[in-house]
């Protein structure tokens, strides 16, 4: 039996693990990959101690820090469920079942999908959620970026350098995001912004050929594009939590509700970082949250009769 199982390996989890190791807690980390969303960031200039570091570089630093300690890590594995039985937890993965006194959930967030016809069918066939990765494949083609915030603006700026045309499609009346980025996009003669516009369908044959958009609720437009970059924010990565007494409390956005000690409504179950209702989603806030979760968890376990 482990003292604690930490699910995920983003900044919240890594920080929690470092603190757990220093408290000599018997710890297991279960994660698909190391770095979480931080690994997917481009340039990071607001993580204290680093004036500049890229996401993959920071993820590498996280990994080095994690592996410095003698801690069990199940990497490349997804936790499929967490269950509280009496006073302890079982965590199931595709490979096995693990037991612990405490669980810290810090699974982060994943890209939100549009959930429109054609989106699943054309994923990796023109539909993408990573402009940094797939953007260069669309050089010399017309593309659409869907979203109204900074990530959509960021994708647009990357794409307007290489694509023939970029349709920037937002449901909002105006783009929301950093003024500097909005101005940059507006200056480009390749970018056409469609405001108050809802994307209804993605179509094509082997690859994407067009999207259907309704502008101002009435005007239907078919846009010939080869790429559709979906940048409409993120949703928490939820793992089913079973508990006979009480259901895990979440917000209407499916974020795990925690108090200032990172405690959920289920005793012994803690959560940290972007999967929770924390007010800011930054690498540094997630890291700090992971620290709070572990120190709270340590106090909890110390008070329990052994």
């Amino acid at each position, binding site marked *: 039996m482990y003292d604690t199982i930490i699910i995920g390996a983003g900044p919240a989890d890594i920080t929690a693990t470092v603190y757990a190791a220093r408290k000599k807690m018997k710890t297991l980390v279960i994660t698909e990959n190391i770095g979480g969303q931080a690994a997917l960031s481009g340039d990071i200039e607001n993580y204290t101690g680093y004036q500049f570091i890229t996401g993959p570089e920071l993820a590498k630093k996280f990994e080095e820090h994690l592996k410095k300690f003698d801690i069990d890590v199940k990497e490349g594995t997804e936790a499929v469920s967490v269950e509280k039985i009496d006073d302890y937890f079982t965590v199931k993965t595709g490979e096995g079942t693990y037991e612990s006194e405490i669980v810290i959930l810090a699974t982060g967030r994943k890209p939100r999908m549009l959930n429109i016809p054609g989106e699943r069918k054309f994923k990796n066939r023109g539909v993408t959620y990573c402009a940094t*990765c797939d953007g*260069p494949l669309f050089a010399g083609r017309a593309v659409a970026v869907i979203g109204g915030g900074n990530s959509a603006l960021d994708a647009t700026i990357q794409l307007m350098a290489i694509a023939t045309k970029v349709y920037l499609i937002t449901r909002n009346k105006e783009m929301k995001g950093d003024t500097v980025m909005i101005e940059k996009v507006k200056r480009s003669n390749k970018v056409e912004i469609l405001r108050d516009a809802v994307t209804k369908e993605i179509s094509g044959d082997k690859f994407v050929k067009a999207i259907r958009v309704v502008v101002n609720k009435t005007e239907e437009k078919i846009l010939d594009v080869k790429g559709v970059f979906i940048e409409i924010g993120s949703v928490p990565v939820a793992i089913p939590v079973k508990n006979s007494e009480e259901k895990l409390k979440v917000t209407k956005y499916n974020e795990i509700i925690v108090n200032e000690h990172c405690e959920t409504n289920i005793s012994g179950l803690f959560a940290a970082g972007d999967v929770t209702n924390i007010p800011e989603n930054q690498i540094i806030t997630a890291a700090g949250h992971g620290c709070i979760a572990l120190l709270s968890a340590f106090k909890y376990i110390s008070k329990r009769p052994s």
Partner: protein
Amino acid sequence: MAKIKVYSTSMCPYCKMTKEFLKEKGVEFEDIDVSVDREAAMKMIEKSGQMAVSQIEINGKFIIGFDREALEREIKNV
């Protein structure tokens, strides 16, 4: 010639993860940057039918993205 081809773009984090993973495993591979090699990009899309990176061509199959399990399975059969 390397039996494994990794098609990647320069800023793609999944591509970096994939390459790091293969290096850790001591596996030799050819790294093709499809953000500069347009011809290779076209060939990759045509062969795999997928417009995304990373793509790993191994044992006549394509693995899309950083899929540790699939990579481990295929490395054994190279």
